[in-house]
């Protein structure tokens, strides 16, 4: 549950790479040399552990109110202060992190798997198949997102899992387009022709030859998707479609904090700092991953 993007990519690896998986081993060696990426990965691990394990050691729960401790600044008793209902902000931050990171990972995984496979297929087969598949994407693009989510909630009830699905179902569209474009240009490369001439099946060509070649842009877009997904979650929660009080997520905490930032700045600053740190780390890691996955960038 720690290195978000590398975990998501690892799922593709499971599909594409066979024993040996040399591409991934090499990528790992190169990634380790990249200081920023290592920092990003490390920070993500720490934040994730903090959110996962933290609540067990906290003397408070996320919903426990203490009006005597109304909106207190950080202190020895409440390290990150309390909100205006006297709830311990650190505990809420940990719980919120679980939701935010969870949404980020799950929705990104969904979008990654569907998007990469769908895009690769459309790009590879081309012609009418491609046209039909991409028109479906266009139609889904045109659906107003909020309406789509409300519909899901109405039909299936309000569950957090649905939130993951809903966001994932929207985010894969862009991924599919990116991958399709990449695959289309790869399709005309001679090595794909050579692979066909060697008698490889289309399935094998897509999984073994196409997808590893598009991993660079995919890795970058994935690390951009995770923060986008976290923001979407905040937006949905704001509309009352996502996380419901007293549960918290980073998005809702930032939103609540923003309303009170003049009187109680820590309510905004602390969740915002965590959110930003996560996004920075993801970007560093994504950048590092892209370089690490490009076998031509470094010679060792």
């Amino acid at each position: 549950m720690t290195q978000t993007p590398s975990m998501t990519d690892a799922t593709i690896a499971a599909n594409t790479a066979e024993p040996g998986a040399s591409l991934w081993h090499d990528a790992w060696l190169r990634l380790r040399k990249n200081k920023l990426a290592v920092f990003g990965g490390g920070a993500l691990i720490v934040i994730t552990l903090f959110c996962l394990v933290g609540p067990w050691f906290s003397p408070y729960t996320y919903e426990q109110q203490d009006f005597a401790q109304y909106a207190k600044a950080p202190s020895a008793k409440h390290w990150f202060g309390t909100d205006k209902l006297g709830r311990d902000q650190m505990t809420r931050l940990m719980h919120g992190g679980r939701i935010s990171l969870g949404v980020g990972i799950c929705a990104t995984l969904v979008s990654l798997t569907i998007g990469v496979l769908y895009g690769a297929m459309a790009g590879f087969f081309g012609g009418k198949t491609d046209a039909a598949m991409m028109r479906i994407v266009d139609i889904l693009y045109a659906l107003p997102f909020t309406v789509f989510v409300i519909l899901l909630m109405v039909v299936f009830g309000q569950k957090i899992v649905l939130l993951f699905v809903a966001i994932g179902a929207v985010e894969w569209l862009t991924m599919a387009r990116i991958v399709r474009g990449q695959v289309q240009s790869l399709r005309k490369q001679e090595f794909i022709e050579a692979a066909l001439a060697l008698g490889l099946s289309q399935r094998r060509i897509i999984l073994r030859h196409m997808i590893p070649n598009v991993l660079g842009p995919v890795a970058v877009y994935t690390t951009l998707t995770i923060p986008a997904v976290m923001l979407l979650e905040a937006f949905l929660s704001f509309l009352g479609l996502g996380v419901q009080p007293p549960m918290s997520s980073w998005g809702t905490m930032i939103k609540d904090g923003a309303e009170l930032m003049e009187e109680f700045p820590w309510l905004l600053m602390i969740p915002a700092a965590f959110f930003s740190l996560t996004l920075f780390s993801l970007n560093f890691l994504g950048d590092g991953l892209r370089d690490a996955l490009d076998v031509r960038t470094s010679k060792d």
Partner: protein
Amino acid sequence: MPLLEVKNLRTYFHTRNGVVRAVDGVSFEIEKGQTLGIVGESGSGKSVTCYSMLGLIPQPPGRIESGEAIFDGVDLLKAKPAELRQIRGKRIAMIFQDPMTSLNPYMRVEDQLIEPLLIHQKIERKRAVELGVQALQDVGIQDAANRIRSYPHEFSGGMRQRVMIAMALITKPDLLIADEPTTALDVTVQAQIIELVKRMQAERGMAVIWISHDLGVVAGLCQRVNVMYAGRVVESGPTASIFRTPQHPYNRALQKSIPALQPKGAELYTIAGMPPDVSKPFVGCPFAPRCEFAQEVCRGPVELKPGDSGQATACVRVQNGELKL
């Protein structure tokens, strides 16, 4: 029975600007162990002929309109995709023009090299790697056991072409199609690659179709030559007679335009005009508009017919005995 017999192959591309007749009624055959050269200028349909046989033409826009390509009793043009995959890469292998782009940059040479073995012969990976190292040694790559772990970008162009050849030959095919394999390489490397293919052919007794526009290479390597022009074979025969006694006016002009054979300082001979636009239908000889011997009769239909000099020529006037050397 010939190893491969192609009859009346027509491959058209249906584009927005009309139907491009890239290959228009090509027939030829090749025996086991033989080397056939296909020469012609760019766009004459050399590559498309071979791609069509292997089912590598993108469809659409391409379409194989007619023809047969009987390889060892199987018609490649009517074979099911799964059936074709069993032949492609196993019994018929292909090497491409540009070794820089023919290898997947994201895969180690090892993984690409043994892929045909893994899918066609279903042997263990460990054994396949051993065979891969052996194959690299056979094509003259030193320190193969270590080099096999490299990525394509760590090889030079000539070395990559060697890798491609090793990959094509690893399943011991009966037929190797070489699509201008030396065009992208410099001359010394060219010679090495040609020697390599010759040697491999001698060792394994496979047939080779060598596509090229380099007449010198073809003359030194092939037993038979097809000269293509505008999607048709205009002359076909044993190498010696194709080069020594060219009959078809196009082939004559080709031989005349080899720079090395012209006196120093003389203006180089060129064939006036441009190859015809094959998207416009025409009857008769495609070379007629550029031909110095063209007459009214050249507008009529013409077929490849064997003549007395040992080669077949698609020129009405040669067939009528009107054009003597």
